[in-house]
């Protein structure tokens, strides 16, 4: 009897201990992980939320505050003739009042056409304001989805321009000795915010809502009434360009011409293997790992042109342009429609400014994807109203 009692007592104790030990954290709910406006207010009580353009005006200077004579900005970034900097870095004080910006993410890096970069949009009085963010985060769309509103504490970060494109960033010294023309690119420039630093600085406000994104719709003619094809080479002229950069736009009634920007002149694409020809009639054939965005010409029926910019690392890089195939690009004009994407003005050689040789091809629209590959940003139809179905270069069919 005593034995039985002892046994029962031990078993009972064991069961109690097991029960005590089985405490697990509860599953998190949506309310746990998304900020409310009340939480935003609490977070930002130590400082101020800036509108994006105000943020640029407040913190981004022409020359930047970071580099020094001994440790200068990236080479070929300064146009002494017009006293303009294509590259700059301004650090935001770590201490002091909180500096916050908020915006809704307009980009998606699933297709790979955006890489370790995102753009946020803030609509102020019905007008888009945008800012690029450079962050060392691959597949960022997994956490920072298109349509997600975020708030960022910018203290300790920096704002600067990379090839004249403003962005939230950190100072980074480019020393890529394996780059083409490496000695012309060495120096300080905006760099990617380290991933864990960015995650710590950022909070998600509510769930993503893509319907809240504002798209500015244009024809090319309208667009060029809104932006300067060849801006004035002054701080004011550049400022207008910089504020337009990053805008989420839809361009209507355009078609691909089957051409590409060949250093300021346009040339016809070829039908060679995209691995061997950087002029192949696909969105982004190889640059042999130099990595510059590949441009393909979009045109309207008024012969206005803008570049469609794609990365050779995107998943749709080897997809034929609408109307192109292994035989060539002759059918391109028959496919017209709209292209959605991020408006950009990219120039990384100050000598172009110094010699006043802007071509207008500095403007581009960068799609976030194509039908079937990420965000469907290119929508085109032929004369029979058949929708464009992307096809990929297939070496087995050559």
């Amino acid at each position, binding site marked *: 009897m005593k034995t039985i009692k002892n046994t029962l007592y031990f078993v009972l104790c064991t069961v109690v201990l097991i029960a005590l030990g089985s405490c697990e954290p509860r599953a998190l709910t949506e309310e746990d*992980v998304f900020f409310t406006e009340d939480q935003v207010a609490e977070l930002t009580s130590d400082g101020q939320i800036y509108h994006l353009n105000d943020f640029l005006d407040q913190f981004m200077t022409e020359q930047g505050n970071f580099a020094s004579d001994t440790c200068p900005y990236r080479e070929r970034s300064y146009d002494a003739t017009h006293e303009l900097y294509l590259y700059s870095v301004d650090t935001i004080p770590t201490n002091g009042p909180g500096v916050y910006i908020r915006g809704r993410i307009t980009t998606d890096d699933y297709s790979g056409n955006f890489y370790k970069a995102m753009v946020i949009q803030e609509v102020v009085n019905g007008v888009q304001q945008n800012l690029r963010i450079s962050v060392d985060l691959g597949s960022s769309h997994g956490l920072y989805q298109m349509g997600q509103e975020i708030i960022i504490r910018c203290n300790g970060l920096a704002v600067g321009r990379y090839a004249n494109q403003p962005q939230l960033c950190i100072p980074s010294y480019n020393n890529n000795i394996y780059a083409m023309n490496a000695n012309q690119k*060495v120096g300080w420039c905006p760099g990617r915010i380290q991933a864990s630093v960015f995650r710590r600085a950022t909070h998600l406000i509510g769930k993503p809502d893509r319907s809240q994104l504002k798209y500015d719709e244009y024809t090319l003619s309208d667009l060029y009434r809104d932006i300067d094809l060849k801006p004035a080479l002054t701080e004011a002229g550049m400022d207008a360009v910089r504020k337009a950069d990053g805008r989420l736009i839809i361009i209507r009634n355009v078609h691909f011409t089957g051409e590409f920007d060949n250093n300021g002149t346009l040339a016809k694409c070829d039908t060679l293997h995209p*691995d061997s020809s950087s002029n192949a009639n696909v969105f982004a054939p190889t640059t042999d790992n130099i990595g510059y965005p590949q441009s393909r010409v979009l045109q309207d029926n008024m012969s206005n042109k803008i570049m469609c910019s794609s990365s050779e690392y995107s998943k749709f890089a080897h997809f034929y342009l609408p109307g192109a195939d292994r035989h060539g690009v002759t059918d391109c004009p028959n496919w017209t429609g709209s292209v959605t994407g991020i408006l950009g003005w990219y120039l990384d050689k100050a000598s172009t400014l110094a010699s006043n040789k802007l071509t207008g091809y500095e403007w581009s629209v960068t799609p976030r994807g194509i039908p079937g590959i990420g965000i469907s940003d290119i929508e085109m139809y032929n004369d029979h109203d058949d929708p464009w179905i992307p096809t990929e270069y297939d070496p087995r069919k050559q």
Partner: protein
Amino acid sequence: MLLSLMLCVSAFAQTTLRGKVVDAGTNTPVVGATVLLGNQNVATTTNAEGEFQLLYLDATDEEVIVEAEGYVGTIELVLLEENKTVEMPAIQLAPDIAKQTQDEILLNLTEEEMNDDEGRSQSQASASSATTDVFNSTTSFAWSTARYRNRGYASTAETYYIEGLPFNSSERGQFNYSAMGGLNDASRYKDVINPMEATSFTFGGLGQATNYLMGASRYAQGWKVGVAGTNRNYKARVNATYASGTMANGWSVIAQLAYRFSPYVDNKGIIGEGIKYYSLGYFVSAEKAWSNGNRLRFLTFGAPTERGQNAAVTQEVYDLTGSINYNPYWGYQDGKVRNSRIVKSFDPTFIAAFDLKIDEHQKMKFALGYHYSMYSNSAVNFYNAPDPRPDYYRNLPSFYWDGQIANPNNETSAGQLFDENGAHYPWGLFIGEDMNGKSLGTGVIADDGYLIGPSIDPAQYNNLVNLWKNRDNTTTQINWDNLYAANYANNANDPNAPARYFVERRHNDIQESMATINYQNTKYDHLKMTAALEAKVSQGIHYKTMDDLLGANQWIDIDAFAERDIKELASNTGFTQEYIAQIVQNDLYHPNRVIRQGDRFGYDYRINMNHLKAWFQNEWTFHEVDLYYGLSLEYNSMQRTSRMFNGRQAYLATLAYRRGTMWKYLGDDTDQYSSPKSTYYDRTHHFVDPAIKFGATYKINGRNRVKLNAMAMTSAPYARDAYISQRVHGRVVDNIYVHDTARTIAEFYSSSEKVASADLTYEFNYPIVRGRVTGFFTQSWNGTELNGYYDDESRTFVNQALTGIDKRYMGIEAAIAVKLGTYFTLTGAASVGDYRYTSDAMAVSSAENGMPMTQNMVTKELIYETRDKVLLNGLKLATGPQANASLKLSFFHPKMWFADVTVSYHDWNYLSVAPSRRMQGLYTGERTDGTNVNGWFGDSYANAIETTDGQALRVSIDPETQMAVYENAVLDANGVPVLKYPYNLMTMQESLVATNPLNRFLIDASIGKLIYLKNRQSVSINLSVTNLTNNTHFKTGGYQQARLPRAVRQGQKDYENSVITANAWKYPSKYYYAWGANFFLSVTYKF
């Protein structure tokens, strides 16, 4: 050690010694105690009643040395008279409560070492030790902290039996300690045999052989309950054991329950940081003994366990966090600690054994067993989302160094940063001037104490440093909030999208059915014959299940990494996105299957293994010499079957078919994949391996003896090493023959490892001093290993099968125990060895996702498998410290006080090298298969190979030997080119030994008291403190990361564009440290 001697039968009167061994407190019989006569060198063991009898003795003064597992040994003096029987009074043994505690700690230690998905341990101490062997009893616990391995052998060399049944896994070769987690009583009684020695329960192998004896009759009648507290991974333990003793009907029963537990403790920097631990062990055994000597046993045990894990991390992380206990696997969820890596294990085991005593000279043992080992480990997986690991290399301050470390050879970039004394800062060569020759100024001392170059922004750097130093939760731990948020955001955008993050559970189960028949015959004078047959049918069962969707709606069953890697490589392969969508499928007959909580996905395959072993052994025992020899023949087979047909396999099948080549994973049976089936069968592979061993003991006199043991054997590769990518397909390593292609014996054995081993021992045994010295030498040839790693050159996960590995183990082990007066014993032990590779290996590397590894630069043909030598020759084996010594002072007072202090010193401990960093092609630019290496040490960009007198490097490969011929290169002692600093850091074998010699010492101590109460009750209290001085500089293991720092050379085609950069600190090694001071306090009440 059991040692039964067969004496000549005589009809005459004889000199005889009889006695009984009992527990000093309870007077219960001690079963299985060894009784040895020191002068005459004869021994026996006690029976179930604790009795012993020795016959045909010489009439003389004699020392009766009595030892038993779990007891303090004793020596009694007796006078043996001619032709008389001496009846000794009961010999009382005091329970060794310190040893019992140590055994329990050891059992837990070995269990926790089973730390990765495949159940492979980084290092493993031996939880079993021969009590009567001075060396083993001294070192098994004291050296376990340093992860000492007996003679440097892998844990697979040690063979484990339970009641005579083989319990080493057929698939992995190891014994799974978690099966007996916390069951210190179940594992108390065992026979442990030193390497190669003769024993009746097994033919044995290279290492020690252990046979756990779990018959209920071994346990004294009564209850035992205990509680224990510790600051190790689990914090407390309660246990209770009841043993009936042998009842009147011949039955005896024992049952034990042991519960070990620790909830999550929210305290950073403690041992077991972020780890929870729950384990409930049970053990039930019933035994029936008949008067004719026959015995029947049934037993079952298991220990359902759930425990968190920790990870090896880089030294930078340890330094930043200021703790060797930092664990990146956990994070806060809802304010509570949650570990992402939770092991669940449960090994229910059932055994029936029958001992048949045919007559006085013949007995047979039969045993049947069934064992189902359920082992699974969870991990966070991610898809199209950022890497969630907090210690991912890009999240560390050192990532800021990338691109800022100057290439010492590249003068256009190479301003070199000098410290105040004009010397290179030892942590690196930061650029001090830009590539146009402009000085950038001087560096600064950052908050982590490193001198960083002027091209690094100290504000950004220090910000990150301080987040780590302050253990910022979102920086240094898993951010569960982010993982949930990603999924909830994903749901909002597309309710049907696959999860971004989820916790998967990787199951590596194995079920085994086994049987043995063991026959022993002592009919002939001086001769003991043993013959045995053992059979085992095993099935490894491998699959994944969805553990937690973390708020996501579902997962889609594709290979996330295959998709990512293939798409990155698509431009090289010519794949279309449509084709890729097929390849990434995990089951082509169920494409895009929706996976929800608990569903099985990813892979689902079995490894069916059959094992049959027959062996016999003859042992002759004479007055001056003992001899033995044994022969063994072993058959093994393995076959992979799969319940899924994945896209990578299909793709590779297509390739093989196109080329008309018979790839081994497909053979001629590709039709089976043409339609959906419940199971797809790969080929069966058969292996037959013989072994022979022999030995002799020369007894100089009763107190001194010399022993020689020798063995030669072949052994088949384990299944875990045989398949190069078993999650995907059934392709085996190159040297395993396919059954219809083996035409010669040599070909048949081309995959078997060949081993020869011998040892020579001198033993002495005096009343005051005893000990032994052993020299050993073992050479193995043609070993096989499998590695997996992320390869930067081909930008995908690569499996690397290594064959033709030769190893040598040689050394000396010695121990001595000296009695110092009545209460003290001083024991010393030392082991000095040289365990190293004695050959290079051949490696076949292939991408797990089936993508090409490289391209023929002339023909543009894509190459899916590369072959190259791995320069291992001369490197040390990473099997624990190779030089060890310890001194132990033990105290035992007859009033049952116990205490001991052990000081141990460990040296010559090496980190395992990553074979991928030692590929010959990295030194020559060309693999042995003729393909070019994309970025190698000697190319004009790295220019890292030291040359003689500044001459240009010239290398070539001898077409016959495939050995590289280096001209003008400076070679090291192993013939490998010496690399310039800092490239040499990438390939050198690291020492794990602390720089300060004082930090190579570990001190352990314990104290205990046994209190006898009325009515045969007792209470024992023991406190054991390990690493008493809190040495936090003692590395026990780790690994060199496989990845090399690389950069892409712009303007070059793929396969020609990679450069090894000078940033040797980008992927540094990861380490495990020995715990700091830790204790184990136990109180046990017996009644």
